[in-house]
Structure formats: structure tokens, C-alpha cells
């Protein structure tokens, strides 16, 4: 049990160190760019495809339910609220945790095992700043943007699915989608994914950076990164939702 607290403490210190060293020179902009491309751009196909499929499927489900009440006009609203409030942020978080978290865990633990981190240190480069901080920063920046991609591709998938059954016009679909939106329904859930990104970056980097068990450790670091960051995202989401309701009471439906 004390081991859990020890790890929690280590991770916290690790994350805190990342935040503080972010504001010290050198800023490693090149590395941040590199990671942004790796984490953001390369996740786009996955995120867009998932969002599109989810949107189409969700509309099929809500349609069959809402038709019972004669409330088909609400399909776009339900769809948009579901996506922007919860499905978008959470699914993006989990997808990125799967794709990027495992990558970070594997890459860093492999670099440790093959002495690449030592090599970097021997060049007087702060390996933490060089390897860890850019990954955390990139995750934190990329997640909200990826979430938007998933939200909107979900909306598009929902629209096409709805169009197939009711020939609803795009303008009307969009207008109905945002009919019940508050400001905070839009930006609060989107921005909360930055926290998810920070969690994914921190946990995966921690596990990769601190693992020094050779080739076997690489696989374990990758798996543990995904499991731990996925779990933590879902737990933190619960608190974040409560927190958002507290800050923006009108966003509670």
C-alpha cells in the first residue's frame, strides 16, 4: 500500500518538475514540435475515423429511441451535447492514451535500456527537459485540438447518418445541434482534455523514463502507461465534471 503512495508521490513530483522546468531555458521548441507532430498530427486519422463512426452509430441509436417520443428533432441536439460534453473528451483521451501513452512509455524505456538517455546526458543535455517535457507539453496541447476533431467528425458522422434517414439539411442540423448550448458546454469540456493530456504525458513519461529493466521493461512500461493513464483519465473526469458544474452552474443540463 505504501508503495502506491510512493508511486503517486513520485509521479506528482515528476509532473511538478515538468511544469517548473518548462519555464526554464532552453525551451526545446524543436522537440515540442516533433512531439506535436507525433502525438497530434499522427493521431488525427485515428481520432477522425473513430469520431465519425461513433457519431453515425450514436445517431442510429438515439434515433430509434427518440422516434418513440416523436422527438426526432432532438437528435442533433442530443448528438452534439453527448459529443461535446462527454463522448468527445473521454474517447479522445482514451484513444490517445492507447496510441500515444504506450508509444511514450515504450520509447522512453527503450531509450533508457539502450543508454540513449545516458548519451544525451553525456552531451550535457538535460534529458528530462529534452525528452519528457516536450512530450507532456505536446500531449497537453494536442488533446483539446484532437477532441475538437473528434467532436466535429462525430457531428458529421451523425449528420450523414441522419441525412440518410430523414434528408435533414446541414444548416438545420447544425442549428439544432447547438440549440441548447451554453458557452461553457463548449469550451469547458474541450479544455478539460488538456488535463487528460497532461495526465497521459506525465504518467507515460514517468513509467518510460524511470523503467530500467532492458527489453522486457519496454513492453511493461508501454502496457502500464496505457492502463494507468486510461484509468486515471476516467477517475479525474468525474472530478472535472463536478468541478465544471461548480464553476459554470449553467452547464449542468
Amino acid at each position, binding site marked *: 500500500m505504501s508503495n502506491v503512495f510512493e508511486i503517486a508521490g513520485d509521479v506528482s513530483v515528476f509532473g511538478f518538475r515538468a511544469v517548473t522546468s518548462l519555464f526554464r531555458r532552453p525551451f526545446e521548441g524543436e522537440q515540442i514540435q*516533433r512531439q506535436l507532430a507525433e502525438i497530434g498530427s499522427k493521431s488525427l486519422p485515428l481520432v477522425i475515423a473513430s469520431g465519425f463512426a461513433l457519431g453515425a452509430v450514436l445517431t442510429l441509436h438515439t434515433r430509434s429511441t427518440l422516434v418513440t417520443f416523436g422527438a426526432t428533432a432532438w437528435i442533433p441536439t442530443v448528438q452534439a451535447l453527448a459529443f461535446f460534453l462527454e463522448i468527445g473528451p473521454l474517447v479522445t483521451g482514451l484513444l490517445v492514451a492507447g496510441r500515444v501513452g504506450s508509444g511514450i512509455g515504450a*520509447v522512453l524505456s*527503450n*531509450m533508457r535500456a*539502450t*543508454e*540513449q538517455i*545516458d*548519451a*544525451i*546526458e*553525456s*552531451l*550535457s*543535455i*538535460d534529458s528530462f527537459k529534452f525528452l519528457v517535457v516536450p512530450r507532456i507539453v505536446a500531449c497537453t496541447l494536442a488533446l483539446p485540438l484532437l477532441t475538437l476533431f473528434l467532436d466535429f467528425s462525430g457531428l458529421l458522422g451523425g449528420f450523414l447518418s441522419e441525412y440518410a434517414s430523414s434528408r435533414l439539411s446541414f444548416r438545420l442540423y447544425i442549428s439544432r445541434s447547438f440549440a441548447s448550448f451554453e458557452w461553457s458546454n463548449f469550451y469547458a469540456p474541450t479544455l478539460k482534455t488538456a488535463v487528460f493530456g497532461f495526465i497521459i504525458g506525465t504518467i507515460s513519461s514517468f513509467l518510460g523514463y524511470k523503467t530500467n529493466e532492458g527489453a522486457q521493461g519496454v513492453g511493461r512500461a508501454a502496457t502500464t502507461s496505457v492502463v494507468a493513464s486510461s484509468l486515471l483519465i476516467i477517475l479525474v473526469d468525474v472530478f472535472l465534471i463536478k468541478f465544471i458544474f461548480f464553476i459554470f452552474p449553467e452547464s449542468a443540463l
Partner: protein
Amino acid sequence: MINGRGSAVAFDHVSKSFGTKQVLHDVSFDVRAGEALCVLGRSGTGKSVTLKLIVSLIKPDQGKIWVEQDEITHLAESELSRVRRKMGFLFQDAALFDSLTLYENLALPLLRLTGKSQEEADLIIDKVLHQVGLAGDKKTMPSELSGGMRKRAGLARALVLEPKILLADEPSSGLDRITSSEIDDLLLMQKQEHNTALIVVTHDVRGAKRLGDRIVVLDKGRLIADGSFGQIEHSDSEVARNLVTE
């Protein structure tokens, strides 16, 4: 003699332990400029730790380490970077950065540790790659290189800073005889052409005999023999004698 002055690298009663495991126990030796020192010993006797102590990746528990005029165990990070600029490190598996091309791997230390411009760096990189026989592989990713090429690439990265001290961790490990002797040749050439001090950690006795002006033998963290190859062959220590005669 063991005061650092005139030496490229000097260990002065250095001890290091990880947890309860004592890796180095009161080790002292020195390497003069332009001299090649081979550190022999069986696996797990603290040979690699010795090299990491020199570049200050780890700090000793006791004792002092001199690199030229600087006692490095208590240097600040900015001072260390100045000291590290004098040294090149060839890691056991080359430790090339997976995500960078060969060119970028070589450019990183140049751009990070020296104030050289892009053009100057390009010139140096071309020269070094030519030297190790990888002139046509600038754009290649490390994963596409063979073991021997990786080792040469690692050597190239160690050489771009034109080091006065070259550290090599098991330069022949994982390589066939011919390839490993090619690496040995490259090391010797560097030593002869630039008067570079070599510290080579190895368990390859043949290579050590060929490369080393002097040999030190480590066993269970202690330095048990120090001298030329012939001297070690007739050393008092049975372990050392067995090691070099196989």
C-alpha cells in the same frame, strides 16, 4: 602522479556503490594525454561504471576524479558541459537516437555543445562520416543500419566534438572479428592522428592487447593489476593472469 596534473583522466581512491552493492572499491589510476588505457574485467566488475563516472553521468561516493585540470565530482552543470566537450563517448550499443537521422545524431552534440554554425557543423559531419566510412548514409535512420555500421556511427558521434579523450564501452561487443578490428583500427587512427587519450572498457583480450598502451584489471570492484600487457601476463594476481591468458 595521481593529482590530475599532466593526466588526461585520473581516479583518486574512488568508491561507488548502488544500494548495498559495492561496484567500485578504492580505485585509483591515471591516463596521460595520447595514451590508450584498456580496462579489462569480467562482466559486472564495474567497468562501465568507471566510464560513466568520467563523464559524470553518476557521481562517486568517495574519492576524486580529474579530467585534465578539473576535479569533476563537484562541478556545476554548466562547468560540466565545458568538461564534457573534451570527451567523446562510444556507447556499448552505440546509443544512437532512434528518432533522429544519422546526420541529426551527429549534429545534435555539435549544435548543443559548441557555438558552431550550421555550415561549420556540416563540414565536420561530412569529414567524420567519411572517416568512419558512412559518407553516403547521412539521411539514414539508425534502425536501418547494421551492427557494425551503428558502432561506426556511434564512433562518429563521439568524434564530431574532436575530443581529447575518447571513451569506448565494449567497442567490439556483438561484432564479428573483422568488424571489431575495423573499429579498433578507427580508434587507433584517432589516437595517433589527434593524440587522443583512449579509455577502452572491454573483455576482449585480443583487442586490448592491440589497442592498449596500458591495461588495468578490475575484479569485484577492485583494481587488481595495472601495467603493460606483458606486465599483466606476469602479474602477482592469478585472476588477472587468467584473464589475459584465457
